[in-house]
């Protein structure tokens, strides 16, 4: 009888313990729990109007131009405006082409928010303001970070029209946005690409001394007999870029190195916008202490030398600058380096990071 009672007590204790474990596992956003219950899927129908636009081509505290990454604003809702316009894109001292861009910049502005934040987005197609450069064309936007009905939110915006819609950033990550109007490849090679950073609600698990956005993209151009450069669908379809860029220009960060100090911990938000190729990202002289694929800390690798990014794929890498020096970063698919996919991190100064 006593042994049966003891057995019953042990069984009861085991059941209660098991119940406790399951109950705890159901709480909060741990890796083993379900954190989707707080996510917001979809949003109210988008609005289209012929509201005229004026003023800057982008507005919003959550926006910056790469390589700068402004901190995500202390707010859970962000009003963001990124307009589309047609403008000359400067490739280097001798080459430019007529581009179609977001926010007047190639690549478009970096949008930085937190997981769970709501983005109230507005975009005017201002291609009708520059008829002398390129015929006004319909455009659209596709936010990879958003979970919405594409047929409603990413629909065509005719020249002069404005679209407004909202979306919620459900997952942390480094995501692409681009024009989704056909032919999408053509809109992308014309320059209609940009980056969204969604950081975890409670921030990243590590602290860094500095951070930069690095946006890799390909330029498909042809030089006409007149000397004019134009985008080239023929070479784009063959995946033969004329240039491969970090932050919009080939060898840009060779001419304008990113700054760092010996001993600092650096975070890079990297996105391979393609539109056609992959990227094998590597920094010469160090290893990545952390790699978060797609920019999500739960997709972690340690000690990587090179990370593979698909077209439209992003990641966050963190590394320590081991000593004073110049560190080259490349797309290790070396044909891309020849085409311009290389840059420098200049830690050659005498200053060292404070411990």
């Amino acid at each position: 009888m006593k042994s049966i009672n003891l057995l019953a007590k042990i069984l009861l204790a085991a059941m209660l313990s098991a119940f406790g474990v399951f109950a705890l596992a159901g709480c909060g956003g741990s890796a083993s729990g379900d954190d989707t219950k707080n996510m917001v899927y979809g949003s109210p129908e988008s609005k289209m109007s012929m509201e005229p636009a004026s003023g800057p081509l982008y507005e919003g505290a959550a926006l910056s131009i790469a390589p700068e990454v402004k901190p995500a604003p202390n707010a859970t809702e962000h009003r963001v405006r990124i307009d589309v316009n047609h403008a000359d894109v400067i490739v280097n001292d001798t080459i430019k082409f007529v581009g179609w861009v977001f926010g007047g910049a190639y690549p478009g502005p970096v949008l930085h928010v937190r997981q769970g934040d709501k983005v109230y987005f507005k975009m005017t197609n201002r291609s009708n303001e520059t008829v002398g450069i390129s015929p006004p064309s319909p455009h659209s936007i596709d936010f990879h970070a958003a979970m919405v009905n594409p047929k409603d939110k990413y629909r065509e915006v005719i020249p002069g029209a404005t679209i407004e819609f909202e979306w919620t950033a459900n997952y942390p990550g480094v995501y692409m946005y681009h024009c989704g109007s056909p032919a999408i490849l053509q809109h992308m090679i014309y320059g209609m690409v940009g980056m969204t950073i969604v950081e975890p609600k409670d921030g990243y698990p590590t602290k860094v001394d500095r951070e930069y956005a690095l946006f890799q993209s390909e330029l498909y151009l042809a030089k006409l007999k007149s000397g004019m450069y134009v985008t080239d669908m023929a070479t784009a379809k063959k995946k033969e870029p004329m240039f491969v860029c970090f932050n919009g220009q080939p060898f840009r960060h060779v001419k304008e190195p990113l700054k760092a100090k010996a001993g600092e911990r650096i975070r890079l938000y990297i996105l391979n916008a393609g539109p056609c190729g992959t990227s094998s990202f590597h920094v010469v002289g160090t290893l990545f202490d952390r790699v978060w694929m797609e920019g999500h800390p739960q997709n972690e690798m340690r000690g990587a030398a090179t990370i593979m990014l698909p077209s439209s794929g992003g990641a966050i890498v963190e590394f320590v600058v081991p000593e004073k020096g110049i560190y080259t970063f490349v797309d290790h698919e070396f044909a891309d380096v020849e085409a311009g996919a290389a840059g420098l991190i200049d830690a050659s100064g005498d200053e060292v990071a404070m411990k």
Partner: protein
Amino acid sequence: MRQRHHRPFFFFLLTILLFAPTSAGGQQLGTDSLKNNSIDRCGNLKSVNAPIINPISPTSSEEIPSRKEKLIVSGSKGTAYFFLGSLCPCTDAHKHSIMELMSLAPKKNVKLVAVFPNKGESVELIEHFFKGVGFKLNYLVDSTNRLVKRFGAKKTPEVFLIDEKGRVVYSGPIDDSVENLGQIKNAYLKNAVLDLAEGRPVSVPRAEGSGCWIVRNR
């Protein structure tokens, strides 16, 4: 007394002549075409004696004379005029439909002609454009926008299909693939060509589609 009886009839006849329908069997054309005197009272595009400018010799296609253009190719059942822009991305979405038509149209005795009307258009850009899209049509450079005005074209791509009498029997997009995320539910131009070739009224004479604005020279 007899003159008085003739007057009502005279005024009746005058009224009929002045207010005759502007469309007879084809699609009613826009007011721009009426103002330009490019259509007759029955709604037919005026055809004249000069042959269509040979688009293979681009240097001869820079100007389209205002009164001597023959818009119907002799002996054909119809002609489709594609208004295109070398810097406009919208044509690429329809390239498969256009290539299908390039195969179908000759069998139905329908001619296909591209018209490039934008300000700043050049042979160099047009040749580059065709290389990018992967097909090539006979083309005209409408540098004075005469064809734009005659047809009332507003965007690129936009197509006007005319029959052997010069009447516009279809105008609008090539198909509705842009509106349907790449799926063609209505092959507007192909169906119009088939209707025309087989002597039927065109079932959808007018459709709306998206495209780039035409940037006129004048």
